[in-house]
Every structure is written in C-alpha cells, then in structure tokens.
C-alpha cells in the first residue's frame, strides 16, 4: 500500500511540474495573468505532493516498512532513530526524493514571495523552475524510483552506509548542501527570465540577490560542515582533500560568490548585466555537473556510496541546461543594455571586476584539475588522478590574491578619486598587515605563503573593521548620536546590507588565515603503543591506558583510552574508537578531537593488533582549525544580516502592487540604491 501511494504522489508531482511549466511559459509569452495564476497553483501543488511523498518515505523508514524498496535497501531495525531519519538522504533514490522536497519548497517560497511583483519576469522564472522540477520528478518516478514494492518483504535491512551512521554531522551536512545546491535553481530561473524578457531592471535585482544569497549561505555552511565531518570522522587529520565531490561543492560556490559581488556593481553602476546573468546561470550548471560527478560513478571519491546508474540521465539534463544557457545568452544577452560604464580602472568597481575574474579563474583551475583524469582516460585509456600538489599550487596564489583584493577593494572609493584620497585610504591598513605578519613570524611562521596570508589578512581585517563601523562612527561624529542609537540607525537600519557584507568579510579573513596556519603548522606523530606506554607530542604527554570493547546493536566498538597531560598536569582521557559495523568488513575509525581556541589535539586509531595488544595511533596538533568552524558561522550570520532588509517591507507597501504585465522597469536613476550598500 505504501509503495503504491508513494508512486502515485510522485506521479502527481511530476504532472503538476510538467503542466505548470508549460502553462507558465505560455503565460509569459502571451502575457496572461490568468495563465500565470494557474502556473502558481501548479507550483504550490507540486510542493504539496513532494512534501507528502517525503513524509511518507520518512514514515516508512521510521516504522521499518520493508515493503518499500528504498527502506529495504537502507533501513535496519538495529540502527538508532536518528539514523533511520537521515537514511532518507543516505543513498541515491532517497537523496533524489529529498532533492525534490527541497526544490519544491524553494519553488513554492520563491513563487509566494514574488506573487504580486515582477509580473513580467515571474511566469518565465516559474516555467524554468518547474521545468527543472519536471526533470527531478521524472528521475524519482522512473530511473531513481524509491517506492518500488518488495515481494516477498524482507525481515530486516542492512542500514545505511556505516560512514553515515558514524557521526551526528551527517544529519546536518547533507540538508545544508541540498539547501545550497538545489537553491541555485531559483536564481537560474530568475536569470533566464531576465534574458527571455530582454530586461534586467533595477527592481528585479532585489529578488535576484535575495535568492542567490539564500542558497549561498547554506552552501557556505555545507562546504565547511562537510570538511568538519571529514575531520571528525575520516581520521586522517585534515578537513579538505580536493576530492572530486568536495570540488563539486566548491565550484558553484565560487561562481555564486562572484555573482554576489558583480550584483553589487550592477546595482551601483548599472553595468555587468550579461556577466552577472552568465555567472548565475553557470552556478546552476555547476551544481548539475556536481550532481553528475557524485551520482555517475565516473569519479573516484569518498562519496562513492551515492554512485548509480542515473549518470546518463543527469548528463542529458546537463547537456540540455548547457544548450539552453548558451543559446539563451547568445540570442538575448545583447538586449541587456548597460546603464553605466567603468569610469576609472583604480576604483572599487574595477576591484570587483578583478575579484570576479579571479573567482572565475579559480573555478576553471579546480574544474580542469577535477575533470583532467577523465580526459586522460578518454584519450589514452590510462587511469590517473590529479592530487593535492596541483590544487594547492594553483589555488593558493589565487586565494591569496582574493584575500588581497578583499582588503584593497573596499578601501578604494567608488568611481573616480584623487591620488591623495586613494593613498589616505590604502596606506593606513598596512599597519594591520605588518602587525599580523610580525606576530606570525614571532610565533614561528616561516612559510612564505602563510606569512603573505597573514600580511594580507591583517591588511584586510583593518579595512574591514574600518568600513564595517564607518556608518556608526560617522553618525556619532556628524549627528552627535549616542553609540547605541548610531549603531541601530547606521548599522542595522540604513547600512544593514553593508554591515552584513563586512561581517562576512571578517569571517572570511579568519577562514583564510586559519586554513593557511593549520595546513602549514601541523605537528604530527604516528606511534604504536602497548598498554601503559607513553609518547610525547609537542607539549603533550600521551599515555595509553588500554582498550575497551563495547558491543552496540549495529556495531562493535574498540575504544582506546589515552590519558593526556601537559607539563605534568592531567588534562583529559581521550577515547578514539574503531567501529566495526555488521554490514561492512572495513572498520570505521572515529578520532577524538580536543578542541581549544589555539589548536586541536587530534588522536585517531590506525590499527589494533589483538595478538600483541598494540594500538597504532595518529596524533596531531592542528593549530587554529576550530577557528574555521567559528568563522564560517560568522560568515553565515553576516549573510543572514545582509539578507534581511528591514526596509523591504516599508518599500513594498510604498510601491503600489503592480498587477499588470509590463510594469515600468526601474533604472538606477528611478529607484534609489539602498543606502550604504557595499
């Protein structure tokens, strides 16, 4: 009964998406408000059916209904409840169903948020969203059907991949990733609509920015949560390995970040329309490429548990999306006429431009490194892999240049400025740069790239702080406001977006520095210890107390107990584990990480030799890694601050809702740019 109901729900969702898409495109072409209203109803219905299908699958997983093929594949009576929940996205069919859920929620939210606005664009945008929804519903209803009926019904299932059961972060990382990845469909639809109408009016930049920023925030968190998971679970002591699937999550983030910046120039100066639209559309294409990378099985990756036979289907969709993008851009990009020009090569807008080029260069560099093994195999039939040295060598200089621009760009004024003005802006932050680099050198940093990162980091941090608080300081000076009043008015009311953007930058500076320091200043040791033996690592003494076996319903854990002391003072007993899951031969390690603000003490089990009672340990001191997680949270917080504009509601009520197609399109002159936008 459940499998049948699931199949019916998915088919209804497919119908709503397909019909809604056709109706929406037709409404856009014929400028029919009634048609668009129908398309909206289909969009909401699509969401309803997708939500219902996901609720049904979750219920089947939690109640161990093994008559559903997906539950038989990933469910198990022996796993904890939370694992049953996360099993929804632990394998291919469920994860595509979950994709459908997130997509449907995004489509419904974006449709609802713009229901009375931008009527010229919205039918086309809805048409594109629902066309994408049609593809994913088709996948769910056919090639990746999770609701097949199992006969006879198995008594139990194997449970999800042990790697996914091993840490609670697995409950958080995938949903964030999907919220980031899938959300890029919304700006793609909006950008397509701009091209189809041949306009990118000033008022339409706001939804474009909002719906780009929302998935960007999730994607930022998702990438770092993935790194955190790898760090806490995989046991090799690092958080980023340039794995193809890691790269797949980074690539669209890079182009989306570039687009967030080019949107600022577009809003301020009225140019880079075609470029911005291209970046937004490329972001979506890279998410589909990433999906192909993860699902097709052609890349060797830690994420290989999601590999499947739907690669060809996704490739067809990717090819169609690529053709759609190129043809649309080629035929319509010339209709997006710029309203401004680049006045001065030494201005903030030109720094934005260089920033954009660097982001695109970095995207291409990583893309080439990721795809290169496929090229070699296709041409020579030889298996090879592009490793860390390539990615590090290529990305570190570009990353450092981006950090430099993050400082110089905001220090430069918009438009033309005198040489003196420029020097007054650019020179003082050198103090911050020299100070931080000197502190680093005094603390033992010798790697030239790390020193350079510290120098630019210090420079950028000073610029960021100066610019972040400028509106508040100006209000206090000019209007004599009290600090709290100036903060509320200058930072939160008028300059909220700018404030949010600089919070993001301040987080990014810390991430840059933490990555540089943690990857070049690590201390490591591999030792084999018998019970009672000790070793030292930096200031720490590690004494191996012995192992303990702990049986659990779904796994058998071998837990090593290691007493950690520093200068003779007992700090803690660390307990790295080795988990043997019933359904997997290879054991899965769980390192124990003792985090502090300055460094992490990281301890993982390499192997256990029961014959000699010897345990092999990997012990690491990783400086500043904890700051990556903290600073990313700061970046996400800044993104949210920049997203929520308190003036939006007021502006919306001031503008009469346009219920006719062909409402006037605002140019930079007809609608004020939000004051203080960076």
């Amino acid at each position, binding site marked *: 009964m459940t499998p049948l109901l699931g199949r019916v729900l998915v088919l209804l969702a497919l119908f709503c998406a397909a019909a809604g898409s056709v109706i929406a495109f037709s409404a856009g072409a014929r400028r029919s408000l009634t048609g668009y209203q129908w398309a909206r109803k289909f969009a909401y219905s699509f969401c309803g059916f997708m939500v219902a299908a996901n609720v049904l699958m979750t219920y089947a997983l939690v109640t161990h209904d093994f008559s559903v093929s997906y539950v038989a594949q990933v469910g198990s009576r022996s796993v904890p409840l939370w694992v049953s929940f996360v099993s929804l996205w632990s394998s291919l069919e469920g994860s595509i169903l979950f994709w459908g859920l997130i997509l449907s929620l995004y489509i419904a939210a974006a449709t609802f948020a713009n229901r009375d606005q931008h009527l010229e664009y919205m039918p086309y945008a809805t048409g594109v969203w629902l066309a994408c929804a049609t593809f994913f519903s088709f996948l769910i209803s056919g090639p990746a059907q999770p609701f097949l009926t199992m006969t006879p019904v198995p*008594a139990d299932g194997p449970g999800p991949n042990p790697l996914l059961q091993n840490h609670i972060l697995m409950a958080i990382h995938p949903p964030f990733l999907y919220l980031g990845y899938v959300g890029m469909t919304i700006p793609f639809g909006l950008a397509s609509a701009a091209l189809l109408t041949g306009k990118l009016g000033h008022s339409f930049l706001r939804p474009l920015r909002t719906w780009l920023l929302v998935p960007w925030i999730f994607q930022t968190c998702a990438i770092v949560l993935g790194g955190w998971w790898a760090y806490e679970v995989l046991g090799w002591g690092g958080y980023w390995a340039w794995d193809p699937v890691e790269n797949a999550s980074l690539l669209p983030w890079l182009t989306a970040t570039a687009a967030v910046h080019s949107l600022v120039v577009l809003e301020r100066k009225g140019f880079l329309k075609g470029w911005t639209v291209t970046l937004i559309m490329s972001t979506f294409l890279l998410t589909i490429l990433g999906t192909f990378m993860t699902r097709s099985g052609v890349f*060797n990756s830690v994420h290989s548990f999601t590999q499947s036979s739907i690669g060809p289907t996704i*490739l067809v969709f990717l090819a169609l999306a*690529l053709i759609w993008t*190129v043809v649309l851009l080629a035929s319509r990009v010339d209709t997006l006429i710029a309203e401004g020009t680049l006045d001065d090569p030494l201005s903030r807008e030109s720094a934005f431009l260089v920033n954009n080029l660097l982001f695109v260069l970095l995207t291409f560099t990583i893309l080439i490194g990721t*795809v290169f093994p496929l090229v070699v195999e296709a041409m020579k039939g030889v298996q090879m892999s592009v490793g860390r040295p390539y990615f590090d060598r290529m990305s570190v200089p570009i990353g450092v240049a981006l950090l430099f621009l993050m400082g110089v760009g905001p220090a430069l004024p918009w438009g033309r400025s005198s040489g003196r003005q420029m020097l007054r802006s650019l020179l003082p932050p050198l103090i911050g740069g020299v100070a931080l680099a000197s502190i680093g050198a005094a603390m033992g940093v010798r790697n030239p790239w790390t020193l350079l990162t510290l120098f630019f980091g210090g420079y950028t941090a000073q610029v960021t702080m100066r610019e972040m608080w400028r509106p508040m300081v100006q209000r206090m000076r000019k209007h004599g406001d009290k600090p709290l009043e100036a903060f509320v008015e200058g930072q939160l009311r008028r300059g909220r977006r700018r404030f949010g953007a600089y919070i993001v930058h301040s987080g990014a500076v810390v991430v840059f520095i933490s990555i540089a320091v943690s990857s070049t200043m690590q201390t490591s040791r591999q030792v084999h210890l018998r019970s009672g033996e000790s070793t030292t690592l930096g200031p720490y003494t590690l004494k191996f107390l012995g192992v303990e076996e702990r049986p659990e319903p779904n796994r058998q854990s071998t837990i090593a107990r290691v007493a950690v002391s520093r200068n003779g003072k007992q700090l803690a007993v660390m307990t790295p584990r080795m988990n043997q899951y*019933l*359904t997997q031969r290879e054991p899965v390690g769980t390192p124990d990480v003792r985090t502090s603000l300055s460094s992490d003490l990281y301890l993982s089990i390499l192997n256990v030799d029961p014959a000699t009672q010897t345990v092999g340990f990997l012990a690491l001191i990783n400086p500043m890694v904890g700051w990556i997680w903290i600073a990313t949270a700061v970046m996400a917080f800044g993104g949210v601050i920049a997203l929520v504009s308190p003036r939006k509601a007021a502006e919306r009520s001031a503008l009469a809702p346009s219920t006719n197609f062909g409402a006037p399109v605002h140019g930079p002159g007809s609608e004020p740019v939000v004051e203080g936008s960076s």
Partner: protein
Amino acid sequence: MNRKVLIGGLFIIVPVVAVLLLSLGNDPQRIRSPLIGHHAPPFTLRESGSSAIIALDDLRGSPVVVNFWATWCVPCFEEHQFLVAEAANHPEVKFVGIVFDDQERTIQDFLARNGTGYPHLLDAGGRTAIAYGIYGVPESFFLDRRGVIVAKHEGPMTEDVFGAGLKKATAE
C-alpha cells in the same frame, strides 16, 4: 544572435559533455581480480544447518560457481532465486554459496523461506572472503574443471553474465 557568445559557449560545453559522455561506464574503483587465470584459493568450510564439511578440492572435475552472499544484502536476496533455478537447470555444474558475515539462525530462516538448491557454507571470520579478495557482496567466481578461476562478477548475477561465465568455465 551574438556569435561570439555562441561559439565561445559551444567551445566550452562540447568538449566537457564529450569527455563526460566518454567516461560513462568507467568505474575508477574497479580493480581486475588478480585471481583470474589462477587456481582458486582452497577452502574447507562447514555447511550451514548441518555438520557436513565441504572442501573446494572435493568439487574438482566439474565447473564450479562460488557465490559470496549474505542475508542482509538486498541484491543477494534478489539473485538468490535466479541462482537456485540455474543450479536446478545445470546439474553438471557445482554451485557453492559462501555466506559472508552472517549468523547461522538468520541464514537458516532465509534458506527455509527462499529455497536452498545447493550447499551454503559458513565463512568464520571471513577468511575465505579475504582470500578471494571480496570487495562487497554479492560476488561470484566461475571455476573450470581444474579449479582455475576463469571469470568473476561483482554485483547480482544476470542471465547474460551467468551464460558468459558458464561458457568459459565449461570450455575445454
């Protein structure tokens, strides 16, 4: 139509799609079994549900299909019926199931519900699975009359794969 954009776009997308298309079907994790062409690792294991001991050497002289499986593996469940039917169709071929990482009571329940067809052996500690380099279950090996491995298949057995493997195993 902006020709520069069109040509530039096609210049990027055509090679990318072509490379991805050519890569489909490649498995970067596939490792050709070094056992093919060599004598199969010997084993002497107890049959599940009985005290009979079966050794690989006892089967020599007939083509042999060695199938590694487990009751908790869904593809194994799906291929079980097929293998039982093929065992009945080919009395000249010896079939042996080796159950990987499982419990005897569960195995007996499974066989009682889904049919036995041929002996299923218990691989205590997974030593035989390790000797055969098992990557995951199900995996099947086709041995010729001399006990040499002539073919290996990862994943559930299909009619085509079975036919091809059997052809190699029965070839003189």
